[in-house]
């Protein structure tokens, strides 16, 4: 494989990583809010949260991306395909993060919250000061596998016209007639990226657990 081709692939891999990073951060933020909604005492809010999670986990990401990509212009939001792709990825990731967070939030010992009750913290204060910090640390291991999932899932944004790694490999394969090499190298680049992610994850888990079982 020539250097130019490889360089192009590596470049687009950078875009893949960038898209994934943004989507994970957005997904986490939205996911925390959604998990809070799911545990809300307001029945309607809780139902909305649960339905959001159910829908985005229950339907294929590809369909979600196609839907959002075509829906946004209809709603009057003419955004570049990159933005639509990130919106789609983030919403899907948010649903999975919300589910992880919900598990984390539920596993916090009740006593910790009773102590907060006794000390006068309001439900909202308890959510942001006690529940979320603890749940985040509890679900930290899941965050690494989530990140790896998103990097792989980002390959689907190729269908809405974002020239990330997969799309670049596709385009180059079409013009050079070398699909085998190009897709193999693309696969390898994904593999290396994910491997690095899992190594980083393991390092971070150790230093951020702060003794929380």
């Amino acid at each position, binding site marked *: 494989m020539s250097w130019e081709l490889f360089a192009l692939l590596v470049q687009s891999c950078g875009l893949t990583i960038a898209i994934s990073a943004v989507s994970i951060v957005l997904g986490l933020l939205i996911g925390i809010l959604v998990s809070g909604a799911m545990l809300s005492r307001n029945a309607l809010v809780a139902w909305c949260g649960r339905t959001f999670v159910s829908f985005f986990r229950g339907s294929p990401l590809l369909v979600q991306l196609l839907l959002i990509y075509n829906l946004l212009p209809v709603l009057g939001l003419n955004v570049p395909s990159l933005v639509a792709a990130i919106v789609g990825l983030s919403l899907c990731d948010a649903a999975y993060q919300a589910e992880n967070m919900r598990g984390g939030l539920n596993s916090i*010992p009740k*006593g*910790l919250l*009773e*102590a*907060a*009750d*006794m*000390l*006068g*913290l*309001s439900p909202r*204060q308890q959510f942001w*000061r*006690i529940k979320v*910090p*603890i749940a985040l*640390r509890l679900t930290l291991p899941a965050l690494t596998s989530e990140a790896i999932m998103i990097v792989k899932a980002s390959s689907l944004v190729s269908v809405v016209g974002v020239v990330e790694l997969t799309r670049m490999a596709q385009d180059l394969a079409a013009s050079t007639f070398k699909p085998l090499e190009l897709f193999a190298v693309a696969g390898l680049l994904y593999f290396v990226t994910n491997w690095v992610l899992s190594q980083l994850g393991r390092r971070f888990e150790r230093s951020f657990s*702060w*003794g*929380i079982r």
Partner: protein
Amino acid sequence: MSTAPTSAHPAISVRGLSKRFGQTEVLHGIDLDISQGQVTCVIGPSGSGKSTLLRCMAFLEEATEGTILINGEPLGFSQAPGADRVRLSPERIRAVRANIGMCFQQFNLWPHMTALGNVSEALKTARGVPKAQAEERAMAQLRKVGLEERAGHYPSQLSGGQQQRVAIARALACEPKIMLFDEPTSSLDPELTGEVLKVMRDLAADGMTMVVVSHEIGFAASVANRITFLDEGKLLLQGTPAEVFGKPRHPRLDQFLDTYLDRGAAMLV
């Protein structure tokens, strides 16, 4: 700490308190007054409902019937004579609860905050005290329980006894009028109970109104002003330690104390 009573009312007034869990009735129509500045120990066998009673006083459990008054103010439910109970708003509940500090068997320190963080959190978040001031007051409390060098440590780095003392400091930081203790030493190794009981003794000497559910009969006999003996959800005995522990004793109490001879109750025999 001032010993002046804050009102003419009893610190805690329990009337007709009953609690049912499903089909099981755990508390039967308890009537109880806790006086200002006094230490009341609630003792009794397992399953007698003493923890439930304490938790009802803190409104951590909702009684099925009856009312609780804290310094004359209803907590959780208010009930006009002859009328049904009316549930009070969360703000009212929080306001009345501000008079109470609670110490749990499992300490319940927040693992992601240091000792100082735990003690100052309620001041900062719930009471809106500025950070510097809150931490100053928190340090003062940690000093009182003898843990100021541990202020920067996380709960996972502290022993059980130290954690419980931090928990006491955390409750005291909000300057409650009444302190409730739910089996504060039951989760501790025997060597560590002493440091916690000392803090509680000092607190009592300062005139704090305390309600203590505990198995530490020795502590109860020596520190309490009043002993309340609960058995199978009913209030069997009430009185000063001399009255309750003096001979002749109620047969149920004798039965109960038999199991505690090696826990410091030997002095009473």
